């Protein structure tokens, strides 16, 4: 009996005492999880994931990255990048983890990932500037996101990345696609203007003969002769002026002088009159120049044309202050004679300092009012100096209409995409800056137009519009925007392949791709658009500046191994493996300089393997190859340690 009692006591003690240790360990993990939950939400809400190196426009929605999932506003897609501290756990490892109610496996079955926390930390620092740090104990905590992602807003219209922003006032927007030095044999341009089979109108040779420059406003609205004529504000052509002189902004910029500035102003006045005789009389000769005109009631012209007219007029007027002094000049007034351009005279007037100030103020008032009053009228660019959230139109995919389809540029591969919904019709949609020969709203494109094959969602039987299904502005319950972060504790780094297991499958949309482009008269094929590692002729390097691309690339990019750690035979455990504990500093993709980019970029087999993380990664960022003691056949139990609900936005926002 005493033996039984003693044994029971000992066994009980042996079972009870470790629970205290386990409880303390769980408390530690809860602490980690709480800190990391705050971090994840903070980065999701506050980090800037701007991608200035991306192509933002194409001729089909599947040819531009904005429509990809990697650009969605979901927490995991935004935070799981190489700079924001959360990486997908290799699925081969995640599949070995057991959890309460098999939650982990169900999450994986649903297409989700588990994530571990980057030892590099985060916070938008360039990775190679981050000092190596002691081990991050929080790597033993992993997290998953429960709850389905929503139908998020599309960041921008994929065929025209509105809003376009220009300074107000300013001259017409001069665009260059490529430069003269990239013209190929025979002068064929390299760029996007002539990518489409039909040559765009309005191409010029202002930058040196390659024929790939144009004025955006002049070509922006197909069939609008007024806007085509705005080219005169930029420059007249030979024979257009009665006196044989060159008029407009470009001649002034090429040879600045009082005379050329005056001719620039005359060209701006000419275009005002070209829009309609006397239509802008209240602006050109105001009855009270001490107060700006603040709305569009003083002219019968459509608002966007009033905005453009005052933009040019105010800029031309201000240039005169560079050449005519106030005292004895613009104080009393400088006579601006009429000029005969293209058979039409420009208004003559006496230019004063007061009038210049009035034009400038009126230009700002009209531009601001236009942007605020007509968020879906794209007839005039937004003022660069007042960028604001309402400049960005709302788009969402209509998941209840059949998708549109077509061919991926440079290939024969078919692609589909959902149609788009907006809260109100886009007015003056026009052409894009990247593809000025492409009429988005007209039938020059196989899927264009508002008809049955168009990109806009089809009409609702009751309203004639698909907009009844537009939900971004609809009321919602808090529960509809709620998703959950679930944290588990598990020592996954103890697996023998913790650092040699391949990365979790990389969403193909993580790979940046050029929009359609041509080179020396030949459109790039799909492989060329995907191959970012080359040093192409003319443009060198024609590579993706991937430290800009925070939500692109393999999220483990910084840590990825560039060679197989299993040794030459590619098989673990055969004796030729890279030794455990070896220094692998030079075997990582990193982000050191331009020369490192080809390691994981391009269509060649080896960079593709590295991009996809097939060789594993230095996941604890100690620059050593680590192999744990646990064989990969072992299953580990992941302990649930915390759940946090968070607000899941449908649009990109950034708090500060």
């Amino acid at each position, binding site marked *: 009996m005493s033996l039984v009692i003693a044994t029971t006591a000992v066994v009980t003690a042996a079972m009870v005492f470790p629970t205290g240790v386990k409880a303390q360990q769980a408390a530690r993990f809860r*602490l980690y999880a709480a*800190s990391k939950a705050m971090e994840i939400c903070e980065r999701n809400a506050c980090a800037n994931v701007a991608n200035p190196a991306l192509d933002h426009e194409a001729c089909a929605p599947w040819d531009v990255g904005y429509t990809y999932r990697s650009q969605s506003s979901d927490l995991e897609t935004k935070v799981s990048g190489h700079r924001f501290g959360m990486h997908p756990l290799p699925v081969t490892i995640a599949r070995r983890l057991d959890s309460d109610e098999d939650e982990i496996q169900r999450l994986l079955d649903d297409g989700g990932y588990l994530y571990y926390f980057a030892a590099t930390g985060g916070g938008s620092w360039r990775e190679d500037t981050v*000092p190596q740090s002691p081990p991050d104990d929080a790597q033993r905590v992993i997290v998953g996101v429960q709850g389905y992602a929503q139908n998020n807003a599309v960041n921008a219209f994929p065929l025209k990345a509105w809003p376009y922003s220009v300074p107000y006032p300013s001259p017409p927007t001069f665009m260059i696609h490529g430069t003269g030095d990239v013209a190929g044999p025979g002068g064929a341009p390299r760029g996007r203007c002539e990518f489409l089979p039909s040559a765009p109108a309005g191409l010029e040779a202002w930058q040196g003969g390659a024929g790939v420059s144009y004025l955006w406003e002049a070509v922006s609205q197909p069939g609008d002769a007024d806007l085509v004529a705005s080219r005169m504000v930029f420059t007249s052509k030979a024979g257009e002026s009665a006196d044989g002189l060159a008029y407009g902004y470009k001649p002034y910029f090429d040879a600045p002088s009082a005379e050329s500035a005056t001719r620039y102003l005359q060209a701006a006045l000419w275009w005002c009159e070209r829009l309609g005789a006397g239509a802008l009389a209240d602006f050109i000769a105001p009855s009270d120049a001490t107060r700006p005109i603040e709305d569009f009631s003083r002219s019968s012209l459509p608002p966007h044309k009033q905005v453009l007219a005052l933009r040019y007029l105010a800029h031309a007027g201000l240039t005169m202050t*560079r050449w005519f002094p106030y005292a004895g000049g613009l*104080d009393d007034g400088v006579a601006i004679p009429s000029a005969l351009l293209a058979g039409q005279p420009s208004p003559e007037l006496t230019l004063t300092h007061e009038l210049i100030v009035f034009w400038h*103020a009126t230009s*700002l*008032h009209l531009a*601001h009012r236009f942007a605020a009053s007509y968020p879906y009228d794209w007839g005039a660019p937004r003022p660069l100096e007042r960028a604001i959230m309402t400049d960005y139109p709302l788009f969402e995919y209509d998941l209840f209409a059949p998708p549109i389809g077509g061919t991926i540029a440079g290939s024969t591969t078919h692609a589909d995409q959902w149609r788009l919904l907006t809260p109100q019709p886009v007015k003056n949609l026009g052409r894009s800056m990247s593809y000025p020969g492409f009429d988005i709203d007209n039938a020059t494109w196989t899927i264009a137009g508002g008809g049955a094959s168009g990109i806009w969602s089809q009409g609702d039987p009751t309203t004639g519009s698909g907009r009844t299904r537009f939900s971004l502005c609809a009321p919602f319950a808090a529960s509809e925007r709620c998703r959950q972060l679930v944290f588990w504790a598990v020592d996954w780094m103890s697996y023998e392949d913790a650092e040699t297991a391949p990365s979790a499958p990389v969403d193909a949309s993580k790979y940046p791709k050029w929009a359609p482009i041509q080179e020396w008269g030949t459109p790039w094929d799909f492989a060329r658009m995907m191959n970012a590692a080359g040093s192409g002729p003319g443009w060198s390097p024609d590579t993706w500046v991937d430290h800009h691309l925070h939500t692109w690339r393999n999220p483990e990019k910084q840590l990825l191994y560039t060679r197989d750690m299993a040794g030459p035979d590619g098989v673990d455990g055969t004796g030729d493996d890279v030794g455990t504990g070896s220094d692998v500093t030079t075997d990582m993709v990193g982000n050191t300089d331009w020369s490192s980019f080809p390691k994981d970029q391009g269509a060649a087999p080896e960079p593709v393997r590295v991009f996809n993380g097939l060789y594993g990664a230095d996941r604890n960022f100690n620059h050593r190859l680590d192999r744990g003691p646990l064989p990969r056949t072992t299953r580990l139990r992941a302990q649930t340690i915390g759940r946090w609900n968070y607000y899941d936005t449908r649009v990109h926002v950034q708090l500060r």
Partner: protein
Amino acid sequence: MTERAFTLLELMIAIAIGAVIAGMVIAAARMASDCVTAGNRLAIENQLIGAGVLAACDEIDSWKAYDDPDGGQPLRAMSGPRGLPFTPLAQTWAAAGVAAAWDGGESAWSMHNPRAWWRGCMAERAGSDPVNGFYGVSGASVPIGEPAPTYARYGTPPQPPPVLSGAWQHDMVRGLEPALGMYGLIDYLPANAIYGYYGAPNAWTTEGGVPHWMTVGALPAPQALYPATYNDVFSIVPRNPAAGTGGPADIATTVRARWQTWEGGGSLAANVRDLIDRNEHRDVLMPIAPAHWPRVSARIVRTIHKAYFTNACTVAWTSPLTGATSELRFTGFGTTLRGARQSRGLDGP
């Protein structure tokens, strides 16, 4: 009469059982002792790490390492004609010579309010010929109540009427940097602010007087926040800064410094190290504690980089047994500088 006694075998069995029991008890006791020791150690560590996390979270909310209402407040001083991050606005604004008082109300900066508009020329860079004209004359730089600047080639035009003037926006931007430094300037201005203002022409500006950029050596053109902070990091120095690798820390200089992290080439790790050295607040928890307790510290560095306000926290603990150090690193939500100042009543009524 037969004497009852243990046989040798029985005795040996009894001794063996006793030994087994004793061994088990000793093993159990040892395990219990180990568990208690480990549990105690973990509990102490957890409490200290938890305290470190709380200290970090409290700090990013309270800013006490920068301005302690109950302790040192060196960041409320003036540095010549310039203020520091916690200098009362009234004090520094007057020193900056700006006519209009700071007006930080939300409605004050509404985009429908013309006075909040930037009225300069985005195309001008320091030293460039003002071929686009003198934008300052159109209300971009003429503070109400002050004489207009004189432009060498244009002369001295009159003030525009108030309805056409951008003097308010000009004064706000012009006044904030000398008042609070770059971190404070960015913290206070709306997200779509243009950094740069017109002033009297000098050797660093165009002939028209733009841009009067607010920090030495920064981009010589009017900039929005993202391009202004793309390669540059602006930070804020705690009240007891550590000496940086670049030289002895000087609060006034460090407040106005920028750190470059040029993307795309060259290793600038030294710049980042220097930034952290100068701007990181380090708080050693319980400096006097039993020797067998781990050493725990909380560190915080606040930066603005790529338009991202970051409160980077690190809680580190060192084992007294092995000397090994582990860290928990995270970023957190915190009060803005403006919020911290307002809670201290530094922005006036």
